[in-house]
């Protein structure tokens, strides 16, 4: 027998849970800390998600770390499923769509399409059954917001999906989760079971006659499966190759039926918009970008981890207030947003407001929310090469512009990083990037040139240094640098020699150590391990005499 049959019963249950909890707290006399005893199951919970700093507001993450993700009672105690119950008992699907449209919620998965409009389109499409899919294939390297929500507050996503399903007229939903997130899959499956047992999912949700059930499907390590048509192909059990749109999934989606695909975070916003109202949500953010956005702040800031900030906040506020500045008091060089299809913004644009339009205008994108802060020791050409390598590997190969374009760009970038760049490479890159952008089939190829374009725009002189002077200003590109031990500073502690993976450092205890430039592969371990700052990286002219005699082994 399901446990809950109506909104009243749900509210009643919530009261009871809260009372029990209060009784529990006073019984153990844990002063007001009752909620904090629940740590999320992920081992890195506390380091990933701290108390809010700076301008942070917790909407999507409000329950993470506070409730036990494996307990439905905990979620119900936080008004959980009341939005669904309210919707089912007193709203028509049109009214739901109206509220979501009015709130200004836009997709958090990257394409930033207005969610209300997407739901309306799917609702209006002829054909049944309809499906609703939650895109949890968070493939962007450097992003883990969706994982944290799924692991920390899975019911909010399920509730959002159920509301969406009601609005568009679907009765089955899928969560497509990437295989790299086994804990998220486990948590979700458990949450689904619990929700079924309580009558919050199933044939007759909350005794309202509305039927909805969810199934988790796992990906298998293909980035392009985050693209909606590829994702659908993957759920259908095929190779995850995208197909041209239109027809959009809202018209022809899973098994040819109208399908609505939204991101984890988009769904997690929905219950609270219903509960608190569209105006509250629209009150946060800017003119066109409403609400909050979670970011995975990573890289060279003092405080990395998950953050949630109102849209419209400036990058400066994120880096210096929320992130508490750059590590080791170094200089900020660039901020990368939007994952591999995003762009690098230079330190000079640090006052840019973070919203969909501003980022787009600056040559980057919001993406699903990766944000990597880079300090002065980062080589922008190397970063562009890194992202291009990622995209080239993940390109599914279906369309030629993306398959060949990314490969050619990668070839040029690799050459430049090796110090084999020639005059004209930059022009070639620009041409290729334009061709790939305009001719590719899906968002992967269309966005692939972004890292190259944005670094070319803002850090052109670094490309030129690599090509014309064979020098890597950030001293990263292995073929263009050389390590040297400073005789005056080295005290012969032998740490570098012990740590060198190829034994290229010679020297006795308390005597000056020397790096054999012939064998050295410039991995940089020595410079990291030296406690006395006695190792120096040299580039360009400084290395010239040595470069000549040591043709690099790699």
């Amino acid at each position, binding site marked *: 027998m399901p446990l809950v049959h109506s909104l009243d019963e749900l509210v009643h249950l919530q009261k009871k849970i809260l009372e029990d909890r209060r009784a529990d707290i006073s019984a153990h006399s844990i002063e007001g800390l009752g909620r904090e005893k629940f740590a999320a199951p992920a081992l890195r919970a506390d380091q990933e998600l701290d108390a809010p700093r700076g301008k942070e507001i917790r909407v999507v993450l409000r329950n993470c770390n506070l409730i036990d993700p494996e307990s439905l009672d905990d979620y119900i105690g936080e008004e959980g499923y009341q939005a669904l119950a309210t919707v089912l008992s007193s709203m028509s699907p049109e009214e739901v769509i109206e509220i979501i449209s009015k709130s200004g919620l836009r997709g958090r998965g990257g394409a930033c399409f207005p969610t209300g409009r997407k739901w309306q389109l799917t609702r209006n499409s002829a054909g049944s059954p309809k499906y609703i899919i939650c895109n949890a294939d968070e493939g962007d*390297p450097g992003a883990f917001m969706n994982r944290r929500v799924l692991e920390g507050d899975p019911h909010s996503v399920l509730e959002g999906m159920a509301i969406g399903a009601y609005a568009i007229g679907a009765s089955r939903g899928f969560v497509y989760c990437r295989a790299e997130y086994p804990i998220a899959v486990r948590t979700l499956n458990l949450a689904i079971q619990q929700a079924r047992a309580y009558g919050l999912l199933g044939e007759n949700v909350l005794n309202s006659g509305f039927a909805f059930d969810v199934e988790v*499907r796992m990906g*298998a390590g293909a980035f392009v499966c985050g693209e909606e048509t590829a994702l659908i192909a993957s*759920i259908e059990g095929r*190779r995850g190759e995208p197909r041209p749109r239109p027809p959009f999934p809202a018209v022809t989606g899973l098994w040819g039926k109208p399908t609505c695909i939204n991101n984890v975070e988009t769904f997690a916003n929905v219950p609270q918009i219903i509960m608190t109202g569209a105006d509250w949500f629209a009150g946060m953010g800017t003119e066109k970008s409403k609400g909050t956005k979670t970011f995975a*702040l990573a890289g060279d800031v003092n405080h990395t981890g998950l953050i949630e900030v109102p849209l419209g906040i400036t990058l400066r506020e994120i880096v210096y207030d929320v992130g508490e500045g750059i590590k080791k008091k170094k200089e900020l060089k660039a901020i990368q947003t939007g994952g591999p299809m995003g762009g690098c913004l230079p330190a000079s644009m640090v006052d840019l407001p973070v919203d969909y339009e501003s980022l787009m205008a600056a040559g980057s994108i919001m993406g699903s929310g990766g944000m990597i802060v880079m300090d002065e020791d980062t080589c922008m050409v190397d970063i562009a090469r*890194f992202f291009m390598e990622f995209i080239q590997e993940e390109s599914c190969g279906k369309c030629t512009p993306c398959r060949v374009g990314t490969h050619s760009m990668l070839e040029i970038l690799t050459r430049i990083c090796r110090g084999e760049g020639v005059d004209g490479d930059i022009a070639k890159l620009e041409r290729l990037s334009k061709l790939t952008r305009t001719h590719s089939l899906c968002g992967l190829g269309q966005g692939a040139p972004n890292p190259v374009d944005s670094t070319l725009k803002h850090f052109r002189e670094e490309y030129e240094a690599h090509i014309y002077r064979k020098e890597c200003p950030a001293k990263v590109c292995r073929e263009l640098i050389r390590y040297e031990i400073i005789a005056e500073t080295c005290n012969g502690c032998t740490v570098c020699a012990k740590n060198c*993976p190829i034994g290229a450092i010679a020297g006795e205890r308390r005597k000056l150590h020397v790096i054999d430039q012939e064998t050295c592969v410039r991995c940089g371990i020595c410079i*990291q391990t030296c406690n006395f700052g006695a190792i120096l990286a040299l580039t360009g002219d400084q290395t010239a005499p040595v470069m000549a005699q040591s043709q690099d082994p790699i």
Partner: protein
Amino acid sequence: MTIPAQPYPLTGRSFKSLEKEYPLNDPLQKAIIDQILQSHCDTPGGLMVILNEIQSRIGFVSQPIQEYVARVLNTPVSAIHGVITFYSFFTTEPRGERILKFCMGTACYVGGTPQLVDKATQLLGVSPGQTTPDGKITVEVCRCVGACSQAPVVVVDEQMYGRIRPSKMPALIRDVLKSCEDASGG
């Protein structure tokens, strides 16, 4: 549309000859595969589910397994092979007892994974993608595992280790080898 009993000419091998090959010649393994096939063969789009389960429970999806699945599902082997080769999670060969994955996501790459890989290569004598000759450890590089704030990250099976420095590698590898022995001993 009705599906004919034999939609494609199947020139593949018969059940009988497939059952002679590893791992299908092992009754235990075959029972697992059969069970997986049984519970998902009617699921729409079940192929991905089936392959995912085989990969996680058997550890690989080799050619004989692919042919076997194709036979049971009555689809061409090429369709299955196509799926296997598309997704990086599927492997066609058995891997080591422990899998040592180095995250090559952006944060970790910037955080120094390349140096860690160098160090591990030096210690184990195998480069990424290879398994040590004793079948104990497979070294792999992988995409962002979603723990970037801990960069650089090394994943041993499902356990994550963050902020690993090259100097910590020997101890980590020793631990992994020891856990292999513990597992086989106990």
